[in-house]
């Protein structure tokens, strides 16, 4: 295990999960699902009932928040369209953490 002492706190997994959860809660609030629990293993489709068009909105918000370093569309495109359905919040958080550290 390595500890990256140079990484600012906001790029760690816990902070990113909190940030992503915040964005998701706003999205879910529109559907009246704002009390859903959001954790690393939460699935976008099965647990949060988000459709792929919601993930387009999420993608835009992530770019707004983190800038061009986060290209969620390209991240999913590399994995294939059918995998969207299996995607978890943790997959997204891991990707953001890795992208920010590459930074």
């Amino acid at each position, binding site marked *: 295990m390595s500890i990256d002492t140079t990484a600012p706190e906001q790029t760690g997994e816990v902070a990113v999960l909190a940030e992503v959860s915040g964005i998701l809660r706003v999205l879910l609030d529109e559907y009246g699902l704002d009390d859903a629990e959001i954790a690393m293993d939460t699935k976008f*489709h099965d647990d949060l009932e988000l459709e792929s*068009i919601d993930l387009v*909105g999420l993608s*835009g918000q992530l770019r707004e928040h983190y800038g061009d370093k986060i290209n969620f*569309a*390209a991240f999913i495109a590399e994995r*294939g*369209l059918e995998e969207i359905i299996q995607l978890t919040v943790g997959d997204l958080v891991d990707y953001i953490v890795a992208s920010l550290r590459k930074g």
Partner: protein
Amino acid sequence: MSRILAGELKMHVQRMKPEVVPEGGPAPIVVFIHGLLIDSLASYYFSLGPAFSAAGIDVIMYDLRGHGRTERPESGYRLEQFVSDLDALLGELDVTEPVHLVGNSFGGSVAFGYAATHPERVATVTCIEGEPPVDSWISNMKYILDRAKTELAQEETITWFAQEHGHHQARVFQAVGQFVQKTTIADDIPASARIEPDLSALTCPVFAIFGGDSELSEQVPWLEASLASCRTVVIPDQGHSVLVQKTAQTTELIVEWVREHSRSVLVEAN
């Protein structure tokens, strides 16, 4: 989310600018048009969009009326209304140069409809598993929409979907059921304006991609004989979902097509 008022509707549009600027001219503009009822721009946003942007193409994706995050009026779903929406959208986006239209399934028919009525605005049409809006298309659409309207209204169909394909798929089809029940789409699309089967209205180069197992691939001889400039590719062992099943191959084929029909030099696909 980007919603802009285009014509009478607030339309959801997403644009991916070219990641690199091509040499020798402005980046070609590709407009992606998705399929009917269960589809949205997400089908492109998470597949072809990023690859096209990386190849130096200016990408426009939008949700058709009633779909995704574009407004859903109760009525007004004839093909010519989808065509007017596209024209209004391009106007709002200040797009003046001819665009490359890429339509999947019903989106292909919208692309053909636009090319037939606005030939000066279209550089090429790529149609994935779709049909030009001729009489046979009308009958195919009527069959599909009538089935959706009657079968998806039945509780047992949705329960069957849930058992066979899972909760998520059932929810998707339940939403489709509401779309066809609460709007006039099932009556409107079969009442659409159509073009003559000699396809003389289509003057731009056309690229048609089909799955070999799909009945739509039977159009190949007719398209090749009728259109002045036409290329067809039939991908073997594939049905209607070529775009989803063979995303990489479809991307490569269409980027190459746009590259051939563009003045500027695009980045090599890798």
